[in-house]
């Protein structure tokens, strides 16, 4: 008997090569620049070791449940963010669109930060490092004025890299060197995401593992630097009094939330490429714990180096004072050392108080140097680069540091781009015959052209705006609706059954309680607190203005009304899709319900799609 041919119709959705690739991609997406330059700063200003308490509480009640929710959702529905939320309920489709919108906005500015990293990386191959010396002024009589008044490191960052304008309204010109680096960065992103997870899956082995190697090298080197122990003690000494400040709890909650890259849609996209029967509960716990441990692990070398920098600054201050005293009193060179400096000062103050007063010595206090805490780009491009100059073999350390930052950022970019790419592939807007390479090329080119705005003189002010408004508030809103949507629209009972089908065991009491009550409540509180704090102070920014009287201090300026309107637009645009899409479907249903032949839509079930 010849039976008609039955060619097995396999699922032609792309797959991860192995589970390790998937876990590594999620970890790479979660572990980003914030783990290196935001967590140590928060630890420092919020009472050191005491900050870990609200941090872990937030992780337990907010981070892990939301992460598990997203991974389970993507795995069950096997669609990107837009398709997944449409499948849960058409009224919740706006949540998916909002996620997609946020991923687009963040991709735009995140790659510009990588552009800056690349620029510093390329410049690290010179001897001496360009941010270690001030250039001469035009007639070669002295050092460049702007550089002399601030520091060489500040000058290189604000003038040679950003060529920053004194005001956000002054756009300045496009900086050609930044455009070249931006093009390179987008070319690298295109190269790695050209065929979706086929190519990112290979690239992630390097970009996700390499930062850990470099962090370890920096850890070993950093701990051997003088002053490292002071830095670490300063970082980790717990001060439990700070826990009384609600700001600390808010910062912990937001840090966990943004650090795990929740509500971007990227995690849903990643897990949608998984086989349906995969233990997403274990994955979620693994990724969350690895992310937090990485934050802690990264803060050790960062603070060793910061302690080294503070100690070196303190010693320099002392040495300068000592030289001035020795020159003034014509004492032998080795008479005053750092150790007996205070004794000598008190002795000289008694014998020659007028001379000492006339010298106008600067008071050197180690605590003051340690207190100079910075986060974000300031930490990487100003403070850390200054510390690197002081280390022997600075070129090698600079190159390693900037490659590490680049890998960290690149693996996060993969997640962002996947969050944009996957829903587009599934929407019927894009026809199936278009090759993936073309689609990713189009996305990368459009993003590159729009991101050219960030290479203007005022670009870094705009990136701060995007970061504060597009990359923060909408995520809280979307995550809140995610949890509410799954817990109360899709119903937890159904979701638990789906998770049981995928992992083999029913989600236990912890998951039930957090999904139903604790996480939504926590998100609501965080959202309200966040909005209250933002609206309390009128939004202002710190501008770098060489003509300011207080230069090199930054000038505090207020955003003009049109910029404030853009801020509100950025924050509102992703959120507004949630009610808009719901309204759209409501109107559609009302119109259809007038037509009697309308059949109620099928109830979607996760198992039904896969059995």
């Amino acid at each position: 008997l010849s039976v008609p041919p039955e060619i097995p119709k396999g699922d032609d959705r792309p797959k991860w090569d192995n589970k390790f690739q998937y876990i590594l991609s999620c970890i790479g997406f979660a572990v980003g620049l914030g783990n290196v330059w935001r967590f140590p700063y928060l630890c420092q200003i919020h009472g050191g070791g005491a900050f870990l308490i609200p941090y872990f509480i937030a992780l337990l009640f907010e981070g892990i449940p939301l992460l598990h929710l997203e991974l389970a959702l993507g795995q069950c529905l096997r669609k990107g963010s837009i398709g997944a939320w449409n499948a849960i309920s058409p009224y919740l489709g706006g949540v998916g669109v909002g996620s997609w919108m946020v991923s687009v906005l963040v991709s735009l500015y995140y790659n510009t930060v990588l552009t800056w990293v690349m620029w510093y990386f390329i410049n690290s191959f010179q001897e001496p490092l360009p941010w270690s010396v001030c250039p001469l002024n035009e007639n070669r009589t002295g050092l460049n004025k702007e550089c002399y008044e601030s520091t060489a490191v500040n000058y290189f960052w604000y003038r040679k890299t950003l060529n920053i304008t004194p005001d956000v309204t002054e756009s300045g010109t496009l900086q050609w060197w930044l455009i070249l680096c931006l093009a390179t960065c987008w070319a690298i992103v295109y190269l790695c995401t050209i065929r979706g997870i086929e190519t990112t899956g290979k690239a992630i082995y390097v970009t996700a593992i390499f930062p850990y190697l470099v962090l370890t090298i920096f850890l070993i080197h950093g701990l051997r630097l003088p002053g490292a122990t002071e830095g670490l003690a300063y970082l980790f000494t717990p001060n439990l009094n700070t826990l009384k400040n609600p700001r600390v709890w808010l910062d912990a909650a937001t840090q966990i939330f943004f650090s795990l890259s929740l509500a971007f849609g990227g995690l849903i996209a990643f897990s949608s490429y998984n086989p349906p029967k995969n233990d997403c509960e274990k994955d979620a716990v693994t990724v969350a714990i690895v992310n937090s441990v990485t934050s802690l692990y990264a803060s050790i070398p960062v603070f060793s180096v910061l302690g080294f920098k503070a100690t070196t600054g303190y010693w320099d201050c002392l040495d300068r004072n000592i030289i001035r005293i020795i020159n003034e009193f014509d004492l032998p060179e080795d008479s005053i050392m750092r150790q007996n400096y205070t004794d000598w000062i008190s002795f000289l103050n008694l014998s020659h108080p007028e001379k000492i007063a006339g010298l106008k010595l600067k008071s050197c206090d180690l605590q003051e140097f340690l207190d100079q805490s910075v986060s974000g780009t300031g930490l990487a491009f100003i403070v850390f680069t200054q510390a690197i100059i002081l280390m022997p073999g600075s070129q090698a350390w600079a190159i390693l540091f900037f490659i590490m930052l680049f890998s960290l950022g690149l693996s996060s970019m993969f997640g962002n781009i996947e969050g944009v790419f996957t829903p587009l592939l599934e929407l019927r807007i894009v026809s199936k015959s278009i090759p993936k390479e073309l689609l990713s090329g189009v996305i990368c080119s459009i993003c590159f052209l729009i991101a050219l705005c960030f290479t203007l003189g005022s670009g870094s002010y705009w990136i701060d705006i995007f970061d504060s408004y597009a990359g923060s508030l909408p995520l809280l809103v979307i995550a809140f609706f995610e949890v509410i949507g799954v817990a109360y629209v899709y119903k937890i009972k159904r979701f638990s059954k789906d998770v049981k089908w995928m992992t083999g065991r029913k989600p236990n009491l912890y998951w039930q309680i957090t999904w139903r009550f604790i996480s939504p409540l926590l998100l609501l509180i965080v959202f309200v607190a966040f909005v209250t704090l933002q609206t309390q102070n009128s939004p202002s920014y710190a501008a770098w203005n060489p003509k300011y009287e207080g230069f090199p201090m930054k000038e505090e300026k207020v955003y003009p009304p049109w910029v404030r309107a853009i801020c509100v637009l950025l924050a509102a645009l992703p959120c507004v899709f949630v009610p808009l899409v719901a309204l759209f479907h409501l109107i559609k249903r009302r119109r259809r319900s007038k037509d009697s032949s309308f059949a109620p839509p099928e109830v979607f079930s996760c198992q039904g799609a896969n059995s």
Partner: protein
Amino acid sequence: MLRVLLLTLSVVAIARAELCKPDAQNAFKVRLSIKTALGDNAYAWDANEEYLFKAMVAFAMRKYSSKSTTQISNVLLCNVTDRVSFWFVVTDSSEDVTTVPASEVEAAIRMNRNRINSAFLLSDKTLQFLKITSTLSPPVEPSTPVWLIIFGVVLCVIVAGIVFLIAAGIQQRKKKNKESTERENLEEKGEVTVAVENGIPCEALDLKSGHINGVFAADDERFTSL
């Protein structure tokens, strides 16, 4: 006679002391930081080093102006401290009464700063002539900025990678298209049917040989031969 000699000597000594004192006219303060520069190899500052210094200043004056006939004895040092710092002044060779103008001394020292520094194994920073500024060296700028070279290398690698991946993708797609069109053509002509019998494609089976039923195979042997 002896008294006159003594008197003239003391007058000369007083006159010299008048010429060289802190903040005197045309006097310069010098400050050395030998321990900072040389560390363990630092030498002690003694009368011999002072003699060398006087010799170097005299050398500088002679080199600066060929007419100059400055002797070592014309360079006067005073107020040597433990720091090591002192004042010096250069007197006119003929009369030990007036000092050489500060501008000339400054120009002479600037011209020969390198030689003076090397004689003492020091640098501009560790052998300071207060009030005499050193000229700043121009920065070394390579013809092509280094970063452009590195950038070019990185960009070439990336573009090569992209081109390779796109080409590989196009090739793969062409192969897939060729395979699927071949299959379609053959199926249309009906020559090859992927017939399946019990899960085994018939091509794998030996159709020509057929199935031999053992029961009937031994037909011939059932009957006895006649």
